[in-house]
């Protein structure tokens, strides 16, 4: 309490800037791999009274961060996004004391098993290239995961069962169907992302919708896919869906056509916002949420944050940090 009084006195006397790190709550981030300047999102009470709770502007850090005097209350949380570590979500308690010291330790990046099933002949190299692109994009955007693929050729009767799972419906749109046959084809692994390189014309499709059988672990890549299609579908698998409820970004002026969840089809897509990265790591709801939680790669401390929901525990989808 004494330090707070001192801080107030110094502020009143004009001897201390409000942002001065001299007296401030501090966050120490341990275990940053690769010398990254991690991205830190902080939601906390920064001022007393109504309106005092806020998501602070995203900041960068190499390990030590001054946060000003964060106050108690407001369901405080911190998310740390790193290139070489998994996203950390912590709920530190702050006090009235302006010298709170908090420390967190980042864990290694999450290895995400991906089973790539090659139906289309000669698609192995294409799949490898798409996976490389997805890994690069997810690293650059600090999602905190690394895709670990295995590749296997689909043979026998399973070919037909799998190809029938991704068809043009009577409304002329591509839909997933008969997913049980796909799941029982012998070319499917429960608890992993299953990607099928199909002979069918089309770009990419995640089979998450209930009308399609509802399995976000099934992704089809058609013969028209571009190099960013797989990364886009992984975004859907990690909870950025449905497309028309914020999973796609082309109708939101806060996003450019460089966003990976833009449907405009360009291979040039390269960007996830911090709000998207946050959801890919935390979104958990009755529609399966992110497969990182559903498949057991993250613990169930997620929160119900579909793309368009913003509140004290869900940052805006467009929340971001200054690039690079």
């Amino acid at each position, binding site marked *: 309490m004494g330090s707070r009084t001192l801080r107030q006195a110094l502020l009143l006397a004009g001897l201390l800037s409000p942002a001065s790190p001299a007296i401030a709550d501090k966050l120490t981030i341990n275990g940053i791999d690769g010398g990254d300047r991690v991205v830190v999102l902080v939601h906390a009470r920064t001022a007393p009274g109504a309106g005092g709770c806020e998501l602070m502007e995203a900041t960068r850090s190499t390990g030590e961060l001054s946060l000003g005097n964060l106050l108690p209350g407001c369901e405080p949380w911190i998310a740390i996004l790193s290139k070489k570590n998994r996203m950390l979500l912590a709920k530190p308690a702050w006090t009235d004391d302006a010298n709170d010291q908090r420390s967190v330790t980042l864990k290694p990046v999450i290895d995400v098993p991906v089973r790539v099933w090659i139906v289309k002949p000669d698609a*192995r*190299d*294409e799949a*490898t*290239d798409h*996976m*490389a*692109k997805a*890994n*690069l994009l997810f*690293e650059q955007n600090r999602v905190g995961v690394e895709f670990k693929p295995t590749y296997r050729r689909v043979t026998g009767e399973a070919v037909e069962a799998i190809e029938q799972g991704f068809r*043009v419906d*009577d*409304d*002329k*749109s*591509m839909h997933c169907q008969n997913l049980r046959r796909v799941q029982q084809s012998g070319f499917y692994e429960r608890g992993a992302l299953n990607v099928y390189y199909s*002979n*069918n*014309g*089309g*770009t*990419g*499709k995640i089979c998450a919708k209930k009308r399609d059988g509802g399995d976000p672990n099934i992704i089809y890549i058609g*013969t*028209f*896919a*571009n*190099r*960013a*299609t797989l990364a*886009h*579908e992984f975004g*859907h698998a990690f909870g950025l869906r*449905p*497309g*028309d409820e914020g*999973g*796609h970004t*082309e109708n939101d002026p806060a996003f450019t*056509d460089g966003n990976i969840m833009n*449907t*405009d*089809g*360009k*291979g*040039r897509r390269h960007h996830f916002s911090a709000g998207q990265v946050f959801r890919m790591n935390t979104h958990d709801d009755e529609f399966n949420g992110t497969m990182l939680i559903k498949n057991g790669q993250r613990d169930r401390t997620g929160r119900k944050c579909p793309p368009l929901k913003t509140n004290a525990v869900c940052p805006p989808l467009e929340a971001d940090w200054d690039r690079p």
Partner: protein
Amino acid sequence: MRLIRRLTSASPLTISLLLATATVLLPSTVLATNGAGRLSEEEAVRAARELARWLAVDCEDGNLMRVTRYKQAIVADLIGALEKGAASDQLELVRREAEASYMELKRHRWEVASTMDVYVKRDVDNFAAQYRARAAQALAAIGGPDARAALEAILAKAGKGEVQIREDVRRAIELFLSKAK
């Protein structure tokens, strides 16, 4: 309709510029019409934008309806897209971007299986294939005698070798035709 044609063949980089001036360029005599009535200038510009977007759309979830709602008003432009395919400047842009992407991947540790030539050609060819297939898909969804005739004609031309269409695109067009209204 002339404006819509220009937009569908324009480089993505020029589309926004064209759209910005669309209301000035679009004379009332070329406004698209259909059986359901005439599109206003504003609707025609919006239709052009949706059409250009659709032909390059990656994840189609919910997007088909956004273009087929213009019904017969955009059929002529879809037929043009089906017959002519993607414009050379669009393909050149895809090529340049794919080259840059390949070089970026090589600078990082991620395993790339293809040579740059293969990597780039795949993206360019797939974009061209997708462009025609999306046109066929929308035509099938809108339906009508002109749309059906166009789908049948492109298949016939492909059969005679008068137009080069990739096998998966031909199969897609056949499939869409079989489901056309």
